[in-house]
């Protein structure tokens, strides 16, 4: 069954309720598993408005659900899988405030990836965009990531929709800067990564990452370095440097790799699947960027303290 992924714009709680209520009621009437992930104050208003009719709806505060795009995709996938074969009807309102431009880009990409990850799930999703609160470019991007738009009670095909591969390619074209000259460098010359892990752990501790974040970064860097050793071309190395609250760790080699813009974003079925390692790296760190070109392959990981 095809995914229905639609967005709508609203201004004010009244308009919000007027659009989401018919959607949620249609899900309840059809016997679907209904989930509502909504920001306050809309969440409270919605619960009050539905009263006991909303008793079977699974409510989540958006502020707790939308913390990390790759993890959120995984969480939605778990919800869809846990209700199968029932269809899921999801009201899904991401948080668009408080992110850096780079983080916002990843949330835009997340909306685009929904179309791939849930393609055949039969799920129905409605994504509300608050015209008063969301930045203008967020509204622009919503038109590129949702194949359907709800306007005045009618759902229409959205001509501005961009397929997720093209969208992802655009995200990866963002300008990135090379490591600063004073970045710490570790040459990867040995298939034994024991010393590399100690190096990353030391930099993580010096940056003030907590134990779990430091360990996650070590596991992620180890995986990317192991991939470089397996598939890359020497010379290869690892740079780390602080960038405000972030510790950046980049691993580069001189091999040519042409990853799909979807690489590492789609949750694998199991650890046996190709792509399990890179997907897990994306889960472990706050942000992973891949830059692959004729001058080599560079994987940059960000970890915030």
């Amino acid at each position, binding site marked *: 069954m095809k995914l229905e992924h639609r967005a709508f714009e609203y201004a004010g709680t009244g308009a919000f309720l007027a659009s989401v209520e018919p959607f949620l009621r249609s899900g309840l009437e059809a016997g679907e598993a209904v989930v509502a992930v909504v920001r306050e104050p809309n969440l409270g208003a919605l619960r009050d408005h539905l009263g006991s009719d909303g008793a079977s709806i699974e409510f989540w505060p958006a502020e707790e659900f939308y913390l990390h795009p790759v993890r959120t995709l995984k969480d939605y996938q778990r919800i869809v899988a846990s209700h199968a074969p029932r269809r899921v009807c999801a009201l899904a309102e991401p948080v668009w405030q408080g992110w850096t431009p780079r983080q916002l880009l990843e949330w835009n990409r997340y909306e685009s990836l929904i179309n791939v990850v849930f393609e055949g799930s039969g799920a129905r999703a409605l994504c509300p965009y608050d015209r008063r609160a969301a930045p203008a470019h967020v509204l622009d991007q919503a038109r590129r990531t949702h194949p359907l738009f709800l306007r005045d009670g009618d759902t229409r095909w959205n001509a501005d929709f961009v397929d997720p591969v093209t969208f992802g390619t655009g995200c990866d074209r963002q300008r990135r800067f090379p490591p600063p000259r004073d970045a710490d460098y570790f040459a990867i010359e040995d298939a034994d*990564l024991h010393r590399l892990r100690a190096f990353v752990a030391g930099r993580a501790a010096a940056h003030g990452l907590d134990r779990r974040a430091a360990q996650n970064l070590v*596991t992620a860097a180890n995986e990317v370095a192991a991939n470089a050793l397996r598939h890359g071309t020497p010379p290869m190395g690892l740079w780390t440097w602080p960038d405000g609250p972030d510790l950046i760790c980049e691993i580069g080699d001189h091999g040519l790799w042409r990853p799909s813009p979807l690489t590492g974003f789609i949750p694998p*079925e199991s*650890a*046996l699947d190709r792509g399990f*390692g890179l997907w897990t790296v994306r889960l*472990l760190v706050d942000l992973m960027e891949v830059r692959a070109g004729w001058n080599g392959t560079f994987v940059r990981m960000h970890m915030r303290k």
Partner: protein
Amino acid sequence: METSWFAKRPVSDIRPGDHGWLAHTGLEERDRVIGIFVGEGLETGEKVVYVSDRPAGRLPGLGGRPPDELDELARSGRLRVIPRRAACLDRSGGFEPAKMLDTLAREVGEAFGQGLRAVRLTTDHSRLLNEPGRPGLARMLGCEHRLGEAVSPSTMVKAICQVDRQACRPDELTALRDTHEVLVEVNPEFDDGVLKIVRTFDPVGLRVEGELDAARHAVFSDRLAQVSAGRGGVHLDFSRLGFIDLGCLNLLAHHAIALPRGQALVLDNLPPDVETVIELVGWHRLPGLARGRDRVPAEEGAAR
């Protein structure tokens, strides 16, 4: 509470003055410890004293040797297999701790006279604990205490007291263990200073210590295949695992799905850092792997 006053030592690291304890789960474990203890003693010019009613040719570390060689070892005083009646039983067949100490003193004295640099003593308590008219636990404990007092200050004696775990009650086993300072175990299957792999017998499996990464996948995979061959219910004790790479999760899942239907590869004592990664990806993405027991208070073998 974890009992932390024991030293746990691979059999090849047993030193003079060690009064060691081996509570084994069966012949395989016994032979892999005592066989090495006896064999290494004979190969390095030390004296081996084995208190047992079995003929020398049927004892671990001696079984594969031709009778001529065993005779020669006995003649030269390098190997003494002493029946229990001669070593530690009184005229009526009762256990006589003082006689055990006399036996030890006599054998050590002879070895010293011969210029042998060390004496390896091993004795199997299983029958003593199991047979009719068994000595009381207090008597056994008293003997072990005195033996410990004789061995510990020695610069010549290395001793291992062995017992089959089935031979007595768990509380008796614990009490007897507590009279020893050193817990003896098999030699590690592998140890490169970063990763150590030790065979476990109860449950059957491997204890994996240190860091498990791509450079060590092949050796780990090899040992895992060996211990799994022809048996199910294999457990991996990760209590001392400091790091596992993502490739190894893939390796474990590959191994686990090849197991017979309905069997799982059980991961025991997951450290928080390892568990965090597994929970992040989700157990359901690791088919055939099962979460085992969490850290349990020290039993035999959990001490460090």
